[in-house]
């Protein structure tokens, strides 16, 4: 039997606003519990919501970046359920008439991914393709508070700092894609949200969260299979693992002709055991009715105070930036791809270039040396200023220090944040460019390696390489290799 996996995603993205969705409280992460609260977000009697315009602006930006139709008039609803993290007993959301609808995001699937998908489907794979993931809707809503269960204490604490933080929920249409493709989509989406400065997308802080829906059907079937929702997914890696596990679970049940055992339910990803388990009814609060929100008027973009949000130009997105890096800086597609994966890195690269580094060299240094150091460290921000790296690259280009010495300097810069020139002076790493000095070293090496010189005379090219190595060694790596090579060749030919 050939199966097809259908995946739908519900992504909650925390908007990068300074105040909450419906009140003036701060959105600062990590504040002392219940200090960022007021009568409105605490659900006190008589509190009324007022809409944060900045949140609307960011949601519109997200909608436009994801090619959505913008509803000029949208509406808020109350989604009712009782749970201690929900101060008003309902969440204000946009159920009936969302701000954005009918968008899409194209993702590029690489060859291995394609093969994987197509093997499952049992068909020959075309080499590379673009998959369009349709986006059903993007709507505005508010976050709930956070329950804290202290260990070994029979109490539950509630922190309402998060209650009322502005979110957008992005809902994709169910698509026949692989778990890996789903994660590719999420990565691309994350990059767009970062580029448009809609969100920080810090998964570890919960500012990007994703629930997934999975169903399996026989290839060729029109009807969708039974949909299972999975929650508690905290990283892209976990999402892929959970999707793969759930895909397998459902396939097995279908193969053993127990399809009735696939029930429409919400399952929780148990990342320790690496399996999905049914959620206890208590884990998911029971949903009551969806009601109108009479405390907020219609969100009408035709309103004069809103119109300019629609005319605002979008910041450059990752894909656009990638193309520009290729055409403007002469980078390879691969280099541009990695540099533009995150806005932070792309901005850093351009900073280095704007400070005078050769674009191609800058890409090399960042992709090879800097990224290696960054990956090994705990730093969130790159601790080397763009200007300092540019200076270092120029010093190497101008032959002030050798490429190898440059690497040492960069490590030191990364550790200490010191200026490259200081490190070079301190460590005596400056390149030896004086012909006289180099001549002395060459003579000394030739004196000690008479055999090698004789071999060279007999026509051995290997011997020349060996001698060069000895010269570099004698100069502690600081000898300018080009000058040394010239002098060496000259000397050997005169022998």
């Amino acid at each position: 039997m050939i199966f097809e996996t259908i995946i739908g995603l519900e992504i909650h993205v925390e908007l990068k606003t300074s105040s909450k969705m419906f009140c003036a409280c701060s959105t600062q992460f990590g504040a002392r519990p219940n200090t960022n609260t007021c009568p409105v977000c605490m659900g006190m009697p008589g509190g009324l919501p007022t809409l944060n315009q900045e949140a609307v602006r960011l949601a519109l930006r997200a909608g436009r970046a994801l090619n959505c139709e913008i509803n000029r008039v949208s509406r808020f609803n109350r989604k009712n359920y009782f749970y201690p993290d929900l101060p008003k007993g309902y969440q204000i959301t946009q159920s009936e008439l969302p701000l954005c609808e009918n968008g899409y995001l194209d993702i590029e699937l690489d060859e291995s991914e394609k093969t994987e998908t197509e093997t499952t489907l049992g068909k020959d794979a075309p080499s590379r393709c673009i998959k369009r993931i349709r986006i059903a809707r993007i709507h505005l809503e508010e976050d709930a508070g956070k329950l804290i269960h202290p260990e070994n204490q029979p109490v539950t604490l509630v922190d309402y700092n998060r209650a009322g933080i502005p979110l957008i929920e992005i809902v994709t249409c169910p698509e026949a894609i692989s778990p890996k493709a789903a994660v590719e989509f999420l990565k691309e989406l994350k990059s767009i949200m970062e580029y448009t400065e809609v969100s920080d997308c810090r998964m570890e802080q919960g500012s990007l969260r994703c629930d997934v829906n999975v169903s399996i059907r026989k290839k060729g079937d029109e009807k969708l299979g039974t949909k299972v929702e999975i929650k508690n997914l905290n990283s892209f890696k976990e999402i892929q693992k959970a999707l793969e596990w759930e895909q397998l679970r459902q396939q097995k049940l279908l193969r053993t002709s127990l399809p009735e055992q696939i029930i429409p339910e919400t399952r929780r990803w148990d990342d320790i055991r690496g399996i999905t388990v049914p959620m206890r009814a208590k884990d998911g609060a029971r949903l009551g009715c969806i009601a109108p929100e009479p405390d907020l008027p219609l969100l009408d973009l035709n309103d004069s105070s809103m119109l300019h949000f629609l005319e605002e130009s979008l910041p450059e997105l990752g894909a656009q930036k990638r193309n520009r890096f290729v055409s403007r800086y002469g980078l390879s597609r691969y280099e541009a791809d990695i540099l533009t994966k995150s806005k932070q890195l792309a901005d850093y690269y351009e900073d280095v270039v704007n400070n005078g580094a050769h674009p191609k060299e800058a890409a090399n240094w960042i992709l090879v040396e800097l990224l290696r150091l960054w990956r090994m460290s705990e730093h969130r921000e790159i601790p080397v200023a763009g200007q300092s790296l540019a200076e270092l690259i120029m010093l190497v280009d101008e032959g002030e220090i050798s490429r190898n010495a440059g690497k040492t300097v960069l490590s030191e810069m990364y550790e200490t944040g010191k200026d490259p020139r200081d490190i070079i002076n301190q460590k005596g790493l400056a390149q030896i460019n004086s012909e006289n000095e180099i001549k002395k070293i060459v003579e000394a090496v030739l004196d000690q390696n008479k055999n090698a010189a004789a071999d060279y005379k007999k026509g051995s090219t290997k011997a020349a390489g060996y001698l060069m190595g000895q010269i570099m060694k004698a100069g502690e790596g600081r000898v300018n290799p080009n000058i040394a090579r010239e002098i060496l060749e000259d000397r050997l030919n005169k022998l």
Partner: protein
Amino acid sequence: MIDKGKPRGMTIAELQKGYQDKCFSVKEVIQSCLQHINNLDNPIGAFITVCNETALEAAEKLDEGLGRGEDIGPLGGIPVAVKDNICTRNIRTTCASRMLEHFVPPYDATVIKLLKNAGAIVIGKTNMDEFAMGAASCTSAFKKIRNPWDFSKVPGGSSGGSAAALAAGFVPLALGSDTGGSIRQSASFCGVVGLKPTYGAVSRFGLVAFASSLDQIGPMTRTVEDCALAFSILKGRDPLDATSVEYDGVFDYANALDSGVKGLKIGIPGQCLEQVDEEIAESLLKAGRVYQESGVQVEWFSLPEMDLCPAAYLVISSAEAATGLAKYDGIRYGYCTEAANNPDLDGMIRRNRSEGFGEEVRRRIMLGTYVQREECSSYYQRAVSIRNKIKNAIEQAFKRFDLILTPTSPVLPFEPGDNKGYLYNEARLGRFTVMANLTGIPALSLPGGFSRAGLPIGLQLAGDYFSEDRLLRAAYCLEQRLGLFMQTACVEGDEA
């Protein structure tokens, strides 16, 4: 003056004059006001909380200001009674419910801020139907309210405490809230003036919601003039209430009242004579004649949509209440059951709500939840379509007329205990009033006469959006011509 029980029964205008002429200090007025409440309110039950200390403190401050020759504001030294569903900073705000029995808001409602800025002094919080649900003030969790005109009768609801406090002469100004006629019906039963402003004209921030799309705070007074003054202070857009709007009409209260009614066109729906108490109908007819004599063009017309309003109101108000009251789970504040250490969270919330809310509130939450279930959504949709229908009908009516005149209530104040104040009856009693809430137009109730048994009869004037100016002008004319204003009920135990 004060020795004779005055300034009890004085109007805002009279008190202002008294302050101007230095007949009494603010402290004397507030002291006398508190004394009357503390001595005489016991049988009436108009107040849940009396602010003895804070009111006197505020009075002393104002007296100091007066001593320095400062302007103490347009409502300087005026005691105001506030319905107990309007939040007052550091003053218990209960909504007449066990659920909020000990709730002390750390914030003032916007209207309270406005009143305080104008120099008014909050004298106490008035009794009401629990969460404003009722039309007879019989559902208060704490005590019943008696009508000062006849203790055997209800004062109307849900703003019964505010209306009774005015009728008893305790205060010249009170705040009420009006979801289906609460201000107007209690004003009518107690023989005072009550205005439900245009929806959005007065901020709802700090008003404990019953049904957000219908609720509106309004002033209650003993004269139209006082009502106009109070409204001029309360109106205006509030950044804290997204449904409030910049006042979109002329409102020059000082000149509004005297400019007359000549040339106005008033329509009276024929439905107002059907199933209406005979004595009330007589008052209505008399008012019609008075207007005609004053140069107003009075015409009868048909407004059958009016009869659709009560059912639509019932569904919409209950639905909004069901979600609006969801926040009362007893977790962050409010009533929490003895079994609070019950590990079962659901059970705890259920018990908090079952024990904290009274029967009437629970009934409406259940109804409201029911009509919003997916399989029952047709009820709600029909109610919404009726609401649109009545909006259209009203728009048409205001193309022909400047104002619509009706009785406020189809019945006279009745005796408690016959369930008339509850659920369906509230809607039926609101036959003439709920229309203004469903459409958002302003409407005002003023005394239109007395029954042979001496019970007050109220008449309602409704106008187009933001026409409070015209509404008050027409009410002022009728008030002056009928000569009914400023009557105070005689309360037993009165030293006079």
